[in-house]
């Protein structure tokens, strides 16, 4: 069972503002899902390598040649607060950690 306190902590990590009732519901729903998922922790996986990716990847680097990319105007066109120097944001203020 996930405690309400843990839900609040995870919501802070995820930068999600949850209302009281949302957080309560989340605790119940996540607990139910985690209960189902828990079963895999009983499997014997001693010595099994983890798979993070199915493709056997090596570094895939292209040649370091300049090429055209978006102009600053294109990159800023969809921003909520474009400024001449870049993306405008509110002051970090007191909410910053």
């Amino acid at each position, binding site marked *: 069972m996930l405690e309400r306190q843990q839900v609040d902590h*995870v919501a802070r990590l995820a*930068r999600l503002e*949850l209302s009281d009732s949302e957080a309560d519901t989340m605790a119940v*729903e996540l607990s139910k899902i985690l209960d*189902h998922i828990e079963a895999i922790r009983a499997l014997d996986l001693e010595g*099994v*390598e983890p798979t993070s990716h199915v*493709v056997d990847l090596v570094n895939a680097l292209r040649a370091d040649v300049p090429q055209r990319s978006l102009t600053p105007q294109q990159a800023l066109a*969809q921003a909520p607060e474009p400024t001449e120097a870049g993306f405008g944001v*509110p002051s970090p203020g007191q909410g910053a950690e």
Partner: protein
Amino acid sequence: MSQDLLELSAAQAVAAIRAGELDAAELFELYRSRAAADPLNAFTWVAEDAAAAAPAGAPLAGVPVAVKDLFCTEGVPSQSGSRILEGYRPPYTATVVAKLARAGAPLLAKTNQDEFAMGSSNENSAYGPVLNPWDRARVPGGSSGGSAAAVAAGLAPWALGTDTGGSIRQPAAFCGIVGLKPTYGACSRYGMIAFASSLDQAGPLTRDVTDAALLLRHMVGRDQNDSTSLELPEEIRLPSRGDLKGVRLGVPQELTGTAGGIDPGVLASFEASLAQAQALGASVEPCTLPHAPHALSAYYIIAPAEASANLARFDGVRYGLRVAGDSDLDTMYSCTRAHGFGAEVKRRIMLGTYALSSGYYDAYYGTAQRVRTRISQDFQSAFAEVDFIVTPTAPTTAFELGAKSHDPLAMYLNDFCTVPMSLAGIPAISIPCGLSDGLPVGLQLAGPAFSENALLDAAYALEQALAFDGRSARAGGGAPA
């Protein structure tokens, strides 16, 4: 005349245009007007103007394609079914969409989907649910539900979707069409708004297997903008196989029993199809995927974990919604995300953040990655004995709108048969194999990595024998609401 045109598959339409018997502009306008009427809420955007003529000799000849909302399309709304991207018009186009346009398949429309591809019913779209053309009281499946409904109803000749844990195959099954998830890496992910990067893969949703092969042929290939993309060992061919002589089909007991919650009507249709396969010369034998029942648990750790990282970019700074812009930065982030994301997306971000958080990482994420290794090994062992794995695509047929939307876990169980192949990165195709109580049932065939041509050939042979008839969905599903 337009009803006759509508009965042409996409490949037949390509052939007719190339033979000079059909005008590409007429075909585009037929589908454009049908899509614009949209009785199923299948679309989030439909082209207003005729497409530019396809280049002379272009292999797809101007037969237009509908594209899932999450593919970025320059200057055209690309919102991934989310409020947080409402009105977002990207400055560039996804590689697969650009490749199809160059091959002569212009953009017809953008299709509705579950928000950020998280869902199995299309009820998680911020733009309203999509209706199933076979029965409008039912869901079309998800997350590529708009693409599946549009193709089934004849509102688009063919469509693009994406599949992370079944999001092409399951809606294809629910809507009675063909859906193919290629080998991971076959199609570039550049310009696909990401859900879970180690699993996401683009693929075709089409009326038949030949159309799937034709569309896929022009989607695949290495792309310098996606370092996980690969060149396939051979070009995708159009299927032609008429029998299944010498083909060994493996039926994994773990994914084909009622223990997995598989509906008896689905199983009956599945077993009848296996009999057809035998009649075509295939051998059908039991096989085992011992860890497959644990795939769902591993998936619902890995996919949300990757999603929690991918969706961190939606913070009200570079694009999309911003809420509480007058407060401090951290409050702006949290409030923007709270208002912009729907309930299921929040649930998965929370689940993924929790699974990756300090003290839980190895217990959840590490364990899930080890299960993923076991699942890949299970498939490798199975493919030493059989050519293809065959299962029902989904445990049930299309369910009623609202039936599972308040029980996240019940919704996740829809992915029981499709998730193992996603974790292993192998190709799998769903073809319609019959009806159960008047609703389509899907049959899934899965093969080893890069076996697309053999998989398409086997699916084609079976498709000819099963002779599924999707005409009623086109007649009924395209009618006004």
